[in-house]
């Protein structure tokens, strides 16, 4: 019982608990562990609620920022709409109209960029105000804190993506044929990849005070390789191979298949499998790097450097 309580990460706790339930030597303590599991989950949800509430209140009370981001979304959509009209209806990349193609591509890509940005700016602000050091002295472990914060950040970016797609469909009449389950499957896999990238951005910010480098990379070089605005098979062969080595390509392609073509999960298995594999490799790697970086920052006294 003590052994479980002492673990830093709540994921470790959950894993140990599930292992202990299956182990016969722990069978006598089964009831005790269920109680402990229940209190652990209550505490975790309590913390998640606190983080969601903090972020929601901050967003609501920052009214001008909220309104400006909505205006920005509509301006961007209008620009893509008129661009696709100017190009004409004859251009149908991957067999779909250009505007819905752009809508999904830019929407999913912006989701990734905004997720990383949310992580980096949260760490940067916490460093500047000194909140990071205080949070690191709380009873909640750093990795648990970051993962809980990420859920809140994703709720925001996911909300933005939904507003973006809905506005594209409702205001600019983009034609879609969604398969709900396929969309959810692509979104879950994309969330894992975005979480890994967000943690990588936070790690870069703590290690070198340069989380913005990843944002710059996402914002400048990668977008045109990932099929955001045109199919990757239009690229020269070496660049296409590079595009195929990036998770964004599969996230965008997968969402187009699910939302515009209405493909069922079974037909999307290869795309989903590749996207899931990216997530399964990148997420543990990012958590490992973050743990190492936090330890190094505590050793060198650079936790609050920015």
């Amino acid at each position, binding site marked *: 019982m003590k052994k479980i309580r002492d673990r830093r990460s709540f994921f470790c706790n959950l894993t140990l608990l599930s292992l202990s339930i299956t182990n016969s030597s722990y069978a006598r303590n089964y009831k005790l562990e269920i109680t402990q599991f229940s209190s652990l989950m209550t505490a975790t949800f309590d913390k998640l609620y*606190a983080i969601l509430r903090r972020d929601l*209140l*901050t967003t609501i009370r920052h009214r001008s920022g909220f309104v400006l981001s909505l205006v920005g979304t509509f301006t961007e959509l209008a620009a893509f709409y008129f661009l696709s009209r100017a190009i004409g209806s004859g251009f149908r990349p991957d067999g779909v109209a250009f505007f819905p193609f752009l809508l999904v591509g830019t929407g999913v890509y912006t989701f990734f960029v905004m997720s990383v940005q949310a992580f980096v700016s949260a760490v940067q602000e916490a460093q500047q*105000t000194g909140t990071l050091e205080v949070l690191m002295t*709380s*009873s909640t472990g750093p990795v648990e804190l970051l993962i809980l914060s990420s859920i809140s950040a994703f709720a925001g970016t996911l909300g933005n993506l939904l507003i973006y797609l809905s506005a594209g469909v409702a205001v600019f009449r983009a034609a879609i044929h969604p398969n709900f389950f396929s969309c959810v499957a692509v979104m879950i896999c994309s969330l894992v990849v975005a979480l890994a990238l967000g943690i990588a951005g936070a790690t870069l910010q703590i290690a070198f005070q340069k989380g913005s480098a990843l944002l710059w990379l996402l914002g400048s070089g990668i977008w045109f390789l990932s099929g955001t605005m045109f199919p990757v098979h239009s690229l020269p062969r070496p660049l296409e191979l590079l595009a195929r080595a990036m998770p964004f390509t599969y996230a965008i392609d997968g969402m187009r298949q699910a939302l515009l073509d209405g493909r069922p999960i079974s037909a999307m298995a290869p795309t989903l499998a590749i996207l899931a594999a990216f997530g399964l490799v990148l997420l543990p790697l990012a958590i490992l790097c973050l743990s190492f970086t936090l330890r190094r920052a505590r050793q060198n006294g650079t936790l609050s450097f920015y």
Partner: protein
Amino acid sequence: MNRITFESVHKIFRHRPALRNWLGRERSGETIALKDVSFSAAATEVLALLGPNGSGKTTAIKLISTILLPDAGSVKIGGFDARRNAHDVRRQVGIAVAAERSFFPRLSARENLDFFATLDDVPRSERAQRIAETLRDSGLDEHADTLVMKFSSGLYQRLGIARALVKRPSILLLDEPTRSLDAGTTAHFWTTIRALARQGTTVLLATHNFAEASAVADRALLLHRGQLLADRPIAKGENADTLRAFYFHSTGEVDEKDS
């Protein structure tokens, strides 16, 4: 049993100049923040960490709160090693640092305390009452529902102390806690510290204020250039001037007041 144990603790900060300063004046080097420092503190004790700027007071506090890790030696808090059992250490420690802007500006004082109390595992059933009590004790009840971005330095500092107290830690770390407080609030704060110590809390107070040290502390640890120069008891009712004279005598610095 000792709540805080420092055993031969060394802490060195190594500097590397920023890329753009390679051709400038900034050079790599190191600062010895703590050198072979050993001391301990028991429950109910209030320790004053005295020393000039850069003597290692804040480093000692950051080592106890696990914000920093020692390069050599060991820091044990309530029997737990700060390096290996950081989580167990953090559960016992409450910290109020000098530079207090470490709050969420668009949340009120009450909302900020509620957020940090949740992360510090304060049970939900007790949280609201504890926050209300802490706000009252810190003189913040009138400002409880004001967004902290509208706070003055003094109010920020009160809120920093409130955040450290709401957790009800067994070890309280205070880094220049009364720097921006008015005389009345400072006197009330000193009474609170003494009351907490009587209830079993170990308090470590980094300060430049001799009156503060003589009013609340049981012992003074004198740090100078990372070394522990003295560890002496402070008698009840000891005059701040006596402590001041001891400080200048031990550090070898010139007291402008005497010249």
